């Protein structure tokens, strides 16, 4: 198995442009969640989200274009023979919504093929790309697959591009499901009421050692995925799918649970998700549960982009030997007591576990290793 390194990254979130900015804002405990002005929220259970305010919409196009440009500019040139894996749950949903609102024909951009072609062109890649749709674990599964392709010698580099827009389509749906919090989300807090949606684009260039350059962010040392086989929209309360995914990821990385220095959890802020995760981590780590945190109190839930962002944050955390606080978690659930809170925590060790779970019962886990180690 070849080593898999994260060689280049770029991201755009409600907290600004670029990975360094994201890291510093998270360390400062800032949140991009605020009242929405993009569409009326009068009939929804919340008006809060973490959108990117100044995303341009070219005439007849999608906010995706601007998001892609910004992320691609940060990443810069990459090898043209890199394979392309995209992780987006709803692609250019804003264009479909606009067409339907105006009784226009369904645009071709309702499919993923034009979006894949656009991303491939923007990064000057030969590969036309594949979109992976695994709900909120889409980019976990994409990174896992990209890592596997490199580890098994099928590719020298893989670009994972992950993005989802803040759209009324998705916002109204989560509102109808009563999953949105009317107040800023409080992941892992005993008083949490639900999630806030976010918007983001992120790219990670995964490479083998030969193509890694001088300063890779981190190594993707392990990955795992499992379905709960329990329910389509609710997590298995015993965390069985997440436990399987984490065990697979740790086994692939060749580590024991006590070597995990920190966890970047999915932490949506919904009562069931966060309880399930804590149950799973309790089962995996028991009294040796490492420090954990989540970023969705700052960035909102960015759906297909979530794991890509969290992997970038995980890389920075391993380098800095600390994890940012979890915005909103002022009164942690008992299981997480002493392990999660609003303050930055120091970490000691080389491995960080990052996890995501989504509709359709999917769970994904990645083990990151500090590049220096």
């Amino acid at each position, binding site marked *: 198995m070849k080593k898999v390194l994260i060689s280049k990254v770029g991201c755009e979130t409600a907290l600004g442009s670029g990975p360094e900015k994201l890291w510093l804002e998270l360390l400062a405990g800032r949140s991009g969640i605020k009242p929405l002005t993009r569409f009326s929220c009068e009939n929804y259970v919340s008006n809060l989200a973490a959108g990117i305010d100044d995303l341009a919409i070219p005439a007849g196009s999608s906010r995706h274009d601007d998001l892609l440009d910004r992320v691609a500019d940060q990443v810069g040139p990459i090898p043209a023979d890199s394979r392309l894996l995209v992780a987006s749950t709803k692609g250019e949903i804003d264009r479909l919504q606009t067409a*339907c609102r105006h009784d226009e*024909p369904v645009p071709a951009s309702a499919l993923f*093929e034009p979006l894949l072609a656009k991303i491939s062109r923007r990064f000057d890649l030969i590969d036309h790309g594949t979109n992976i749709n695994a*709900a909120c674990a889409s980019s976990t599964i994409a990174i896992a697959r990209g890592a596997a392709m490199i580890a098994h010698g099928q590719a020298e580099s893989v670009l994972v591009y992950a993005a989802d827009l803040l759209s009324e389509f998705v916002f109204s*749906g989560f509102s109808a499901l009563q999953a949105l919090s009317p107040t800023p989300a409080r992941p892992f807090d005993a008083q949490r009421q639900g999630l806030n949606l976010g918007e983001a684009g992120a790219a990670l260039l995964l490479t083998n050692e030969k193509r890694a350059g001088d300063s890779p962010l981190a190594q993707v040392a392990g990955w795992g*995925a499992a379905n*709960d086989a329990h329910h389509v929209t609710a997590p298995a309360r015993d965390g069985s799918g997440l436990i399987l995914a984490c065990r697979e990821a740790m086994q692939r990385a060749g580590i024991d649970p006590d070597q995990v220095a920190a966890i970047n959890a999915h932490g949506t802020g919904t009562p069931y998700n966060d309880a399930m995760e804590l149950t799973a981590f309790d089962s995996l780590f028991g009294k040796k549960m490492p420090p954990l945190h989540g970023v969705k109190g700052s960035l909102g839930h960015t759906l297909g982009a979530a794991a890509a962002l969290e992997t970038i944050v995980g890389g920075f955390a391993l380098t800095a030997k600390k994890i940012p606080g979890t915005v909103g978690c002022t009164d942690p659930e008992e299981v997480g007591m002493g392990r999660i809170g609003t303050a930055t925590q120091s970490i000691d060790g080389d491995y960080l576990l990052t996890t995501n779970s989504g509709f359709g019962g999917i769970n994904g886990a990645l083990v990151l290793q500090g590049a220096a180690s």
Partner: protein
Amino acid sequence: MKALINGIGWITPAGFGQGHAANGQPLLAGELEIPTRKQIFAGIDRRFGRLDDFSRIGLGAATFCLRDAGAEEWSEKRRVGIVAASRYGCLRTDLDYLETMLSEQGKLASPNIFAYTLPNCFLGEAALRFGLTGNSMIINRHDPDRVTAIRIALEELSWTDQAGILAGIVDLTPPPELAADDDLPGSLFLLLERGPRPRIEPYGELVLQGDQLIFNGKEMSDLKELVASCLRIES
């Protein structure tokens, strides 16, 4: 990278069926009938009535595939994954949801329809009915040969400890303005496993060599040819 093909099931314009009882090529263009619960499950299935059409055909084809392989019944969850390729995904469901969302400025947005606007949700429906705890994903890409999901499944089997993968295609008839000449509406799954099943004759061995799919020693150009070879019919 290799696996045995132990089951085939489909819901296509050719009808509803499974490999060991097949008498013709299931991958045909034409009108697609959406199955009712009784056409798939003999017993009560309280969730089926809520499913969107995309999920119905995907779940139906996966069910027939497992039935064909003698793998429908289970007592303990199994490390079996599902990989499905789709060009149009759940676009029809998106349009249905938008109707509910746009009519009264969001007041009537349907939570039940929204839940199926993620195309991987039907994978969860299959997983929970049949106890499948492997990886599960929908893939979208230009896939004229319709074998991308099968290639990914063979790689997953080679690179992980999963015992099997249901791999296939799922697409409803698209809106006319997006229709393409080579559309094949419907769903078809193959069950790829590491070894044979008791009392069921495998269709044969599938090998991935580089980009080439080789079935029983012969290179396959597309899914139609692979299915025809499995069923020993004209492609």
